[in-house]
């Protein structure tokens, strides 16, 4: 006899097998209370789809996207002061909280990927009369238009558009009285086809709208 067997020592291969088995046992014990090992879909791929007209209820706002369009003017016919075109999303929004949702809250609720950071907050108006939307009070569902100025050619009628509906969680404000909404996350994805927006009003087109 020769080698490990001859000297009475345990062969190295046996230790390796034992180490692997031990690791599997430990992994199994760790996984047991967590529900076991399974093939899962990453959470980022599980963002629910939001269909046109479907209601999404977040912690602060309920949102129902009704459509999107792109054209030369804002819904009231004004044209962008500094040129470009206008991408407008129409949505029914309701404040589910006890306190008013600010214009900042509303502006951060629907995001066009890759657009908002570049061109700023949307122009938010009440769809029925075109007045600028300030705070949205609780339990008053309101149809809003959110309009972004976009670069000419960046979006075309008939093309596909993705919108992200953002949800946040409330925390008590420290520096002031009330609630702050923090930790934004994508809560739903809307996909739809861009319609053609309204034409510009001739008088406004000559001088340019405020765009804000």
């Amino acid at each position, binding site marked *: 006899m020769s080698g490990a067997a001859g000297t009475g020592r345990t062969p190295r291969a046996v230790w390796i097998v034992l180490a692997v088995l031990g690791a599997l046992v430990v992994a199994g014990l760790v996984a047991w209370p967590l529900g076991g090992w399974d093939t899962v879909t990453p959470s980022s791929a599980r963002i629910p789809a939001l269909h046109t007209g479907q209601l999404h209820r977040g912690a602060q706002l309920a949102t129902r996207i009704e459509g999107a369009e792109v054209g030369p003017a804002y819904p009231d016919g004004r044209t962008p002061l500094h040129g470009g075109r206008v991408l407008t999303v129409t949505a029914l929004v309701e404040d589910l909280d006890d306190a008013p949702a600010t214009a900042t809250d509303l502006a951060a609720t629907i995001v066009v990927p890759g657009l908002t950071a570049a061109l700023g907050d949307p122009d938010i108006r009440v769809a029925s009369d075109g007045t600028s939307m300030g705070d949205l*009070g609780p339990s*008053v569902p309101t149809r809003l238009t959110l309009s972004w100025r976009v670069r000419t050619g960046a979006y075309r009628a008939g093309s596909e558009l993705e919108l992200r509906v953002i949800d946040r969680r409330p925390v008590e404000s420290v520096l002031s009285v009330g609630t702050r909404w923090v930790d934004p996350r994508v809560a739903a994805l809307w996909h739809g086809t861009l319609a053609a927006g309204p034409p510009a009003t001739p008088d406004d087109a000559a001088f340019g709208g405020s765009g804000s």
Partner: protein
Amino acid sequence: MNRVTAALAGLGLVVAAGLVAGTAPAPSVLQGPIPVGAAVGQQAQGRDIVVTVQGVALARTLRSDDWTGAASGVWVVVRLRAETRLTSGAVTGSLTVGGRTWNVSDRPPVSLDQTSVDPGLPVEGVLAFEVPRSALVDGAILQLGRSPRPQADSAIRVRLDLAGAPVRPSLRVDAPQGVGS
């Protein structure tokens, strides 16, 4: 001072610190509004505001010269006389019912909160709140001040009884107008 005395003294200081911490005003009290109560028709005076709520009306639609606005719920329209005492600026407010709060609506272009009110020069105008029908109850609290939620500043508070008040189909609202003092 022996050890027992020192321990008792230390324990007493801990209890005293606990009492101080436990009875300290909450941040909402320290930073919140300083309420001044009033009734409809009664003049109320705060640090930088003098107001008299003259009346309240409810309507489904408001209209002015070049604007018509339908409410998803109901418009609560407050007619008031207001002036500031120290500085020029807006007079605005909020309406609280059952823990829910609505700020003055920006929609009516003739809203008083879109006008700068000057010291000693009273104006009469309207503030409108867009609320759901479920908010039409007695005991609504109208809060008026230099901002919707005054912090460490006066807030005029007026109780409004909205239950059973008639809701008009349409109501005309006019731009603020100055009045003789």
